[in-house]
């Protein structure tokens, strides 16, 4: 059962061959088996999983369940879960229990079979999960290496079989990059496709909730479960949710695929480029029209991103002040209380970004930094518009390298930020992007990133499914 995809397990549950309860038991068992080594979960929820799985089984007997229900899931600890501790990987929320469920989870259905809340870089800031206040998560492919981040816990959990699929969040690659490093599929949907209500904000204009799954079909099914308009999120799209599975096997014949020149240069490891070229070749053989495309402002995207995202988080983290919830350090006077609480509650990276963002928004610097970054963002959007008027799908590596060793970049924030160079352009433009395992380099998985226009997820998933097919990589290959 542990080798099945989520979609296959879902079908067996609906057909009565396996119960959701049995699946939850298997997942719980797997957690006990591997968690000591992987540390993917911050808060395992085995009883909740069993209780809810039992309710799913009962509803199945009494009528029916949705096509994705009953399959055990892990959820990044940045999503609000009612009555279940939600830390965001931070000490400042160590004992925080939310009053409500994130809308994406509400969309999913009544009884989300939650195996646990997954580890992450504090407040989703990082590319290795080493910035978690609760210790790093290890990559199941090589326990000495990072799983990527910030959704590293979700990626590692799926790769290690602790639950069949996961939800992550992606602000500048936080679903795609760890998916790439752990050999799974990670989808960042169009900005606004999935409600952000209950996603503890990092970069509000960039944050997206996305599926992290064993294959592309699972990705489509999980997106189906969480997508939709939400009156509680003014930035959620009031557009109909299409059937993401209907055309999944449609192939790429006649599809125009553009390889992004700027994301295939020497900043990308040769082995990674080789895997991407191999997949591109396979797509061409499968009938795609392949060409090269330029996104001239992709070179500046990372710089713009590292102003906009910190600016937003510097403001978003202000609510963690010790007054109403979370950590509070006692002090004489409210300002001293703020200072001590935030000093003790936030880790180094959170403090670094608060300072960066505060600086970028300060009077006298706003025009030089924040406004300038927004202009780059507008140019980036224009670049994509031009490129996507000529190509249906753009292709690039997801990350510049395979998983690196724990500690290798933790003292060099700039080297760490470079992990996001391929992922950030799509984030700035708000377009959907997916990472699909394309093969191995140095014995470790490499992700291939596909991007397309706003709200064209059905086509993107179809192309991703074809890429998965031609890559020859299968989830069962994992160690």
């Amino acid at each position, binding site marked *: 059962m542990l080798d099945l995809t989520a979609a296959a397990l879902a079908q067996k549950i609906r057909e009565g061959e396996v119960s959701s309860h049995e699946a939850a038991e298997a997942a719980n068992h797997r957690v006990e088996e591997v968690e000591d080594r992987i540390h993917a979960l911050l808060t395992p929820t085995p009883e909740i999983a069993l209780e809810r799985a039992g309710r799913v089984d009962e509803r199945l007997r009494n009528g029916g369940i949705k096509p994705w229900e009953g399959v055990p899931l892990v959820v990044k600890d940045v*999503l*609000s879960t009612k009555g279940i501790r*939600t830390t*965001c990987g931070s000490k400042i*929320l160590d004992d*925080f229990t*939310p*009053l*409500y469920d*994130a809308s994406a989870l509400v969309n999913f259905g009544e009884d989300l079979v939650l195996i646990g809340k997954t580890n992450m870089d504090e407040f989703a800031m990082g590319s290795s999960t080493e910035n978690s206040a609760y210790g790093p998560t290890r990559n199941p492919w090589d326990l000495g290496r990072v799983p990527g981040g910030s959704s590293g816990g979700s990626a590692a959990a799926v790769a290690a079989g602790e639950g069949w699929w996961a939800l992550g969040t992606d602000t500048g690659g936080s679903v795609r990059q760890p998916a790439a490093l752990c050999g799974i599929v990670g989808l960042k949907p169009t900005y606004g496709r999935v409600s*952000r*209500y*209950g*996603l*503890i*904000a990092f*970069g*509000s*204009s960039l944050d997206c909730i996305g599926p992290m799954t064993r294959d592309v079909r699972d990705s489509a099914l999980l997106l189906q479960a969480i997508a939709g308009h939400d*009156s*509680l*999120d*003014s*930035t959620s799209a009031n557009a109909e949710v299409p059937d993401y599975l209907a055309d999944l096997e449609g192939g790429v014949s006649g599809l125009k695929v553009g390889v992004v020149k700027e994301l295939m240069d020497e900043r990308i490891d040769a082995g990674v480029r080789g895997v991407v070229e191999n997949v591109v070749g396979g797509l061409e053989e499968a009938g795609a029209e392949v060409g090269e495309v330029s996104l001239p402002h992709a070179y500046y995207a990372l710089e713009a991103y590292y102003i906009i995202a910190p*600016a*937003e988080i*510097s*403001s978003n*983290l*202000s*609510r*963690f*002040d010790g*007054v*109403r*919830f979370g950590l509070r350090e006692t002090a004489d006077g*409210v*300002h001293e209380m*703020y200072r001590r609480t935030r000093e003790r509650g936030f880790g180094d990276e959170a403090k670094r970004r608060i300072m960066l963002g*505060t600086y970028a*928004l*300060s*009077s006298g610097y*706003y025009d030089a930094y*924040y406004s300038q970054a927004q202009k780059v963002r507008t140019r980036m959007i224009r670049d994509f518009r031009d490129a996507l008027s000529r190509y249906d799908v753009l292709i690039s590596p997801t990350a510049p390298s395979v998983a690196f060793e724990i500690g290798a970049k933790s003292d060099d924030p700039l080297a760490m930020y470079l992990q996001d160079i391929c992922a950030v352009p799509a984030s700035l433009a708000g377009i959907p992007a997916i990472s699909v395992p394309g093969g191995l380099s140095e014995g470790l998985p490499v992700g291939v990133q596909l991007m397309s226009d706003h709200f064209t997820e059905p086509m993107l998933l179809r192309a991703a499914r074809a890429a998965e097919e031609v890559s020859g990589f299968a989830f069962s290959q994992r160690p």
Partner: protein
Amino acid sequence: MQTREERTYQAVIGLEFHVHLATTTKMFCGCRLVYGDEPNTHTCPVCLGHPGTLPVINEKAIELGVMAGLALNCDVAERAVFARKNYFYPDLPKGYQISQFDEPICNGGHLDVPVGDETVRVGITRLHLEEDAAKNVHVGVSGRMHGSVGSMVDFNRGGTPLMEIVTEPDIPSPEAARAAANHLKEIMRAIGVSEADMEKGQLRCDANVSIRNPDGSFGTKTELKNMNSFRFVERGLARELERQQGILDSGGTVAQTTLHYDPETDEVHELRSKEFAHDYRYFPEPDLLPLELSEAWVREIESRMPELPDAMRARFVEDYGLSPYDAGVLTADRDLAVYYEAVAAEVDPKQAANWISGDLRSLLNESGEEVSNSKASPERMIELICLVRDGAISRSAARDVIGRVFETGDSPTAIVEREGLASVGGDELSGVIEEVIAANPDEVGRVKVGDKKVMGFLIGQVMKATRGNADGGRAREILLQKLDS
């Protein structure tokens, strides 16, 4: 050196109003707005700033903001943007206030303020929408943060839709500032945008104050905060101007600072300037889309707007032939104006104005009742005025009757019958007058040789004999007839 007498001081005052909008729910969540309930009974994860929550704009608040802008002759923007104003304070749950910064909902306008016999035009710089902070309650002797033993926060008020209106610095005196605040309140109430009750904090007023330099340029301005009644607006500004004059007279310079008016001591105090040295790091609120205000929607709102006090005042003068003063009194309170129009439709508008702006209003003032709840309904008032017009009761008897109506709500006709207040008229009055003529031959003689002043005495005798239940006008008429014949 100039002496005080030689130098003329010209005050330059700009006001900043904060007005609670009369919506039923908060600005960015569904919590109800109730004044005076138990603390923290109207809260939710959104207005408590819980992690992961998002704001959703209250459309009614936008509508009321547009209405207010139209009433103040502003340009309504086609596009407005909410922005975050970042600062830390326990009453600000998110660590930022959602406000508007460089793209407010309304720009440029004016308010024509009656000040004494003149009208002062006050420019409106901008009008924007935001959310109010919660309320800090400091526990301890002083009730203020300094020296208190602890603080609590009541989030019921947090997130109330708030409109900020900023005037140009063109208000010439504390008196004009008070009149402007009062006039703004009238307008907001008239169009239903806000109750604008200063006591309840629904209307708050801050001011920028400076004294013009001899060369005509602006002097250094100071900021005067939270004057929480119309009287205190005027008094606070007067005190601050005196303080600035004192500094200038002694050859000093005014420092830019923020002050607080203390009504108990009638003095202004400097607040610690550190508390206000903020860089708010405004940036566009990423959780909300820019507001697009279509011309058609704005016109539609305009078409539904109630009549403004100025227009109503002009119409009362024009249509009912009232003096500007009476029209002003009757339109100062929208409910009173509605009452008046109901009465004026049935009887002589000037008589109606006299009764309502005079007797009825003083009864209302004494009792503290609202005209809309008064037992002296428009129907009762019409009935009363008709009784006077038809000579069925005298004017002075009618004064008693209105008092009874106001207390009991009974019909004036019934009260007149019950209390025996019916006017002494016809033959009976004629008889009384003959008796008075017979009893006062000297006075009658003096009237006949042209001493008109004595008429008053004779009429007084008639009134006395009828215990006031005679119509003075009729009595005079009959008396003159009899004396002529």
